[in-house]
C-alpha cells in the first residue's frame, strides 16, 4: 500500500491514466509520514552527497582553490579565463559536441534496430537479448576500455584484420583523425540499456494498429514510419534525453583509451577529461568547478531544447493531435 502510494507520487506513467487524487484524511497523513520515513535515507543522501557538494562547487567556481589552502574569491575570473584565454577548453568543447552528435543518434539507432529484430518471437530469444545487453553491463568498465585500446592500436586486432583485406590504416587510437571514432564505437556498442527500453515500448504498441495497416496494404516501411515510430515516440524521447545527458558526461572511455591525455593532438580531449586534468592534476579546483557548472548549464539547455521540440514529434496514446 505504501509502496503503491510512493510509486504514484514519484512516477506517473507516461501514456497511462493518472490516478485520481488520493482522499485526504488522517489515514493519508499517516501514510505520507511513513513514506517520508522510508524516503529519509535517500533524502539524507541527496542533501549530503549531492545538493551540499553542488552548492559548495558553485561557490568554489568563483574562487581560486588548490585543495590545500583556503579558497580565494575571484568573482567571475574563472569563467572569463575559460572563454577568453583557454584554447584547450574550446577544443574540449568541440570534441565533446562532436561526440554527443555522433554517439547519441548512432547508439539509439543501433538500439532500435536490434530491438526490432529481437521483438519478433523466435527460438533462443532470451539468449539473444542477454547477449546484446551484456556489453552495457561490461562496457563502462576500465577493463573493457583497455581491451578496446589494444584492439584499435597499431598492429592491434582491428588493424590486422583490415590489413588482411587490403586496407592499411596504421592503427586508430594513435591518429587524430580516427581516435574519436574508437570511443564512439565503444559507446555505440553499449546500446543494451536503451534497447531494453525500446523492446518494452514495442510490446506496448497495440496489435490492432498493425492489423489495420496490413488490411490497408501498407508496406513494411510505411508501417514502420506510420505506426511503429509514432507509437514509440515517447520512448524515443526518453532515450534521447538520457543519451544526451550521458554523452555529455562521458569520461571513462576517453580517459582509458587516451591514457588520460586526451590525445593524440587533443582529438579525444573530452570536456570531463579536461575538467579532471584541471582539477586533479593541476589542483585548480575553482577552475574545474566553473567548468562543471558550465557543463550542467549546457546539459540543461540541450535537455530543454529536446523537451521544447518534443511537442512536434512525440505522441501519447489517446492524445488529440
Amino acid at each position, binding site marked *: 500500500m505504501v509502496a503503491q502510494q510512493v510509486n504514484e507520487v514519484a512516477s506517473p506513467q507516461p501514456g497511462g491514466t493518472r490516478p485520481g487524487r488520493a482522499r485526504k484524511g488522517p489515514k493519508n497523513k499517516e501514510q505520507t509520514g511513513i513514506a517520508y520515513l522510508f524516503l529519509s535515507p535517500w533524502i539524507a543522501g541527496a542533501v549530503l552527497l549531492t545538493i551540499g557538494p553542488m552548492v559548495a562547487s558553485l561557490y568554489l567556481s568563483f574562487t581560486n582553490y588548490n*585543495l*590545500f589552502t583556503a579558497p580565494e574569491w575571484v568573482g567571475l575570473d574563472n569563467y572569463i579565463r575559460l572563454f577568453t584565454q583557454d584554447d584547450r577548453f574550446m577544443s574540449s568543447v568541440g570534441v565533446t559536441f562532436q561526440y554527443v552528435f555522433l554517439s547519441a543518434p548512432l547508439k539509439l539507432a543501433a538500439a532500435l534496430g536490434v530491438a526490432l529484430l529481437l521483438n519478433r518471437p523466435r527460438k533462443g530469444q532470451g539468449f539473444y537479448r542477454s547477449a546484446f545487453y551484456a556489453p552495457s553491463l561490461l562496457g563502462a568498465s576500465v577493463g573493457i576500455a583497455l581491451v578496446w585500446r589494444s584492439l584499435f592500436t597499431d598492429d592491434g586486432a582491428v588493424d590486422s584484420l583490415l590489413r588482411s583485406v587490403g586496407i592499411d590504416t596504421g592503427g586508430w587510437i*594513435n591518429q*587524430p583523425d580516427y581516435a574519436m571514432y574508437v570511443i564512439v564505437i565503444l559507446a555505440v556498442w553499449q546500446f543494451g540499456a536503451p534497447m531494453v527500453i525500446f523492446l518494452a515500448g514495442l510490446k506496448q504498441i497495440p496489435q490492432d494498429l498493425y492489423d489495420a495497416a496490413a488490411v490497408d496494404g501498407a508496406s513494411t516501411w510505411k508501417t514502420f514510419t506510420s505506426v511503429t515510430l509514432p507509437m514509440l515516440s515517447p520512448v524515443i524521447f526518453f532515450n534521447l534525453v538520457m543519451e544526451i545527458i550521458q554523452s555529455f558526461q562521458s569520461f571513462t572511455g576517453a580517459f582509458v583509451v587516451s*591514457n588520460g591525455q586526451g*590525445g593524440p593532438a*587533443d582529438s579525444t580531449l573530452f570536456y570531463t577529461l579536461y575538467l579532471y*586534468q584541471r582539477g*586533479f592534476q593541476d*589542483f585548480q579546483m575553482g577552475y574545474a568547478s566553473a567548468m562543471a557548472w558550465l557543463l550542467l548549464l549546457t546539459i540543461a539547455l540541450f535537455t530543454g531544447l529536446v523537451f521544447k521540440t518534443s511537442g512536434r514529434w512525440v505522441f501519447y496514446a489517446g492524445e488529440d493531435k
Partner: protein
Amino acid sequence: MAGLVTACGGAGGDSDGQVELRFTWWGSDDRAEITEEAIALFEERHPNITVNTSYAAFSGYFERLATEVAGNNAPDVIQMDYAYLREYGDRGVLADLHEFDEDQLGTEGITPLLARSGEIDGSLYALPMAQNTHAWAYDEQAWTESGVPLPEAGWTWEDLLSSSQALTESTDGERYGTTDFGWSWETYQVWLRQQDKDLYTDAGEIGFTSDDLRTYLELLDEFRTTEAATPATITSEIDGAVENSPLARGSAFADFTWDSTAVSFFSVLPDGVGLAPMPRIEGSDRVGQFAKPGMLISIAANSDHPEESAALVDFLLNDVDAGLILGTSRGMPVNDDVRAAVGAELDGPDQLVYDYEEALADELEEPPSAPPPGNSALKREWQRLNSVIGFGQLSIDDAVEQFMERAEQEL
C-alpha cells in the same frame, strides 16, 4: 608476527606507547612486496610502532593523495614526486625535516648532490629515496648489427641525428633510428642546461626565450622530416608503459628514458639494452644531466607521530639491512653505505644501471630546484604541442607563441 610482538610489549607495561603510522607510496606489486618486507623488519625493531601501508599505481596516486590531504586525512609518511613537491611544500602540507636531529633522521650519509634537492626556500620538505638520471636506452644488438657506430660518451645532437638517419636507412624505413623525443619535457630541460639555461628560473619564472624554444622545435622537426625519429602516429602510442614504447615494440632503435626505468626494457628486449649518456651541444662543456631524486619521501606537517615517522624515514633511507631488502626497486640508493652494500650484490640489468651511474658520477650536476606549481599543466601543454606539430596541424611559430602564452598564464 609484528602484532604478536607488540601485544607482548603491551603486557610488559608500556601499553601507552603503541603508535600507528600510515605510509603511502606508488609502484608495482613487486615493489609492494619488498616494501612490506622492509616494513616488517622495521616493526620488528620498533615493537611499539605499527605501520599501515597503502600503495597505488602512479596514475591516480596523486589524485587520491590530494583528496586525502584536502580532507585533513594525510598519511604520516608520504612517497613524494619531485614534480609535486613544491605544490605540497609551499602549501604547508609537509613537515620541515630540518627540525629533526641528525640521530632521529640522518642526512649525513646521503649523496651531497641529492641531499638538498627537497629543500625549498630553506625548508627541507622531502628526502630523496633514490637517485636517477637521464639516459638513452638502445637495442644494443640491432644497433651493432646495423653497422652504424654505437653512441659513446661526449656524442652530440648532430651525432644522434646522423646515426639515427643511418639506422633508419639501414632498415629501409622499417624501423626508426630513435623515438621522437619531442614528448619529453625532461630532454628539453637537459638541452637547455647544456646552454646554461633551465626550464624555470629560481624565482619560478620560465627560464628560456621563444628563440630557444623555436631552435629546439626546429631540431625536433629535422629529426621527423628526415625520418631519423618516429612519425607522430607511432610516437602517440607512448603512454609511459615500457612495453608500449616504440623501442620495446621494435619500431625504433632507441628512446630517451630514466636509467632506473631502463631495467624494465630488459624484460621486453632480452637481447640487451645499452645505456648512453645524453647527447651534447657541440662545444658545450656541460652534460646537462643531473642526479634526479627518483622518488622522495616526506612527513605530513600535521602528523600526530612525527618522531616515529622520522624513525621510519631514517630506516628506509639509511639502514643497510633495509637497503638490501629494497635493492634498486626505486632506483639507486641515496645513502653511500647502503649504495655500496647494494652495489656489491647486483647483477644483470641492475648492474648495468649501477655501472652507468658510476661512470657518470663525476659529471652529474646538482638537480634544479623543484618545479613551480603549473609545471604539470605546462608539461601537458608541451606534449600536446609536439603531437599537434607532429601531425602537421600547427606551425612551429604558432606553437612557440601558444606555449609562451600558456606559460605566462600558468606560472
